[in-house]
């Protein structure tokens, strides 16, 4: 799991028209982009190329490093192994065969098209999500979700979790470090402790982290009470979208819809 957003944090404070765009608009356009890709039939290379060009144009315009985005987008790549099975799943012109004991797997051109399509869709979708995160403060994103009718409780939970994520990750890392400095292995000797013992150690670390988190949540609750919290989560009401922002949203979604429509039809 990638646990550092540092690579993207570098970009989030830059100023570009994309950064300045309202988080609600950006979020909806990202969802629209991913949805358009999902609707795209396999093997529509021209449409896929247009989608990629569109996205990369926006990335370049937003002054976010295109290379960083493309590289980071490989996080989803391991899952592509699942897609490898698509190679062998389609009837059609055989490409090659693999003999696995009693089984013979035959890859086909149609299978190859399906495989490449799925991997490309996945890769571009991740890039779209990365672009959103690289140009939007996460807290703006959370508030955008609130404006888009996500229940207040979930918004509050997301905000809390985001605030304490890094605090608790540091606690977890301190524990791992404390374990590492005591995990000495003598030369020529196998490291001791069976899997059961190792799991027990990690389980206790998890348990300790749980108790610390629990106690922290109690202190936070007291701190909230001290400042007038009564159980209701209040926030300042956000302004509504301007006509310009609504226009950008409408044009963007229409563009994505027409690319998909043309790809499905022709």
């Amino acid at each position, binding site marked *: *799991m*990638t*646990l550092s957003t540092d690579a993207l944090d570098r970009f989030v404070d830059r100023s570009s028209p994309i950064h300045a765009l309202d988080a609600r608009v950006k979020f909806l356009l*990202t*969802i629209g982009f*991913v*949805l358009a890709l999902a*609707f795209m039939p396999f093997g529509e290379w021209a449409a896929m190329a247009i989608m990629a060009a569109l996205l990369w144009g926006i990335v370049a315009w937003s002054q976010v490093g295109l290379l960083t985005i493309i590289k980071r*987008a490989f*996080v*989803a790549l391991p*899952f592509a192994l699942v897609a490898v*099975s698509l190679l*062998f*799943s*389609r*009837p059609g012109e055989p490409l090659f065969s693999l003999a696995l004991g009693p*089984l013979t*797997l*035959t890859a086909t051109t*149609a299978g190859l098209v399906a495989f490449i399509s*799925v991997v490309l869709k*996945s890769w571009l*979708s*991740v890039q779209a999500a990365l672009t959103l995160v690289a140009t939007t403060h*996460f807290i703006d994103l959370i508030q955008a979700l609130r404006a888009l009718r996500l229940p207040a*409780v*979930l918004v*509050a*939970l*997301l*905000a*809390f*979790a985001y*605030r*304490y994520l890094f*605090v*608790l990750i540091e606690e977890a890392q301190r524990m791992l470090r404390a374990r590492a400095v005591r995990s000495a292995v003598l030369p020529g000797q196998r490291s001791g402790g*069976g*899997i*059961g013992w*190792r*799991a*027990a*150690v*990690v*389980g206790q670390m*998890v*348990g*300790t*982290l*749980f108790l610390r*988190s*629990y106690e*922290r*949540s109690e202190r*936070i*609750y007291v701190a*909230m009470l001290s400042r007038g919290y009564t159980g*209701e989560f209040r926030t300042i009401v956000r302004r509504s979208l301007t006509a310009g922002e609504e226009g950008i949203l409408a044009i963007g979604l229409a563009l994505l819809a027409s690319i998909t429509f043309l790809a499905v039809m022709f």
Partner: protein
Amino acid sequence: MMSAFLEQIAVGLHIPDGFLSVPVSIAWWVLTIASVAIAVRRTSGALHERQIPLMGVMAAFIFAAQMLNFPVLGGTSGHLLGGALAALLLGPWAGILVMTVVLALQALLFQDGGLLAMGANIFNMGVATALVGYGMGMPLLRVFGGRPWGLALVGFVVAWASVMAAAVLTSIQLVLSGVPAAIVFPLMLFVHTFIGIGEGLITLAALSFVITTRPDIVSSLAAVVGPEGLQRRVGGGTIGTVTLVGMAFAIGAALISPFASGDPDGLERVAEDQGFLERAQDAPFNILPDYTIPGIDGGLSTILAGVIGLLIVFALIYGISQMLRARAEAAER
């Protein structure tokens, strides 16, 4: 780098965008929204304002706890998904909300799992794991909780089953999206049979630690574990034994599974006679595409085998626990 890569494959439950068809994505979004809505209602009714900071911090806790791992074999490591643990510690509804927030953060902040696929991911790893963890865990603990090995065994089995449930659901969604069942099911279930062992071990050790240290904050759990469980922490020895039994069970299941599918050369057959996958893509609005209807053959039989197998295991465990409980109650009278 390579071991991180292996780990990604091994965990393999955060579905990225691009893999699920639109109808499948939307169907699971609907299920997830419904489940989360119920969870919001349940938690806001019973547990009031104290819960918000608690659940928020707990989501961060699960996220951080997923980083704590231990070396198992050949560069792979055991670590936690956390749904069953969260449900057992906090209750099923709070568990669902906590896991929902964890998965949403992972998708939004770290691109771990797609946006469109988030509904499916939350359902598999949040809703299902919490419901399996709590729904199986509490009845089992009521029966076995009082015995010295009760907490260890139940914690392990329930956490393992929660991972398997998530893996089965993930496979079903992939298959409905056109990935061949004959490959996905064996691969997913095989890998997660072992992943589940790590989940089980950490969950039982963490439960045992919390319950012996602060029984007051997990009162409903402490009540079913009984006084002896509260005093004795589960040691490495017991966990080792559970590991061996679990491993034997997992390997056995993995060996038996090809025969259970009743279609040993499934891969070849899928490659040859499944023209239906093309058609499924042509009708993106069918939630259940054509190919599930004509015959119980190939892909579907594997799904059914998997689901039925899992249901049988759950039913057996539940039935036995009910039986033993009835006997125990009869003995008391």
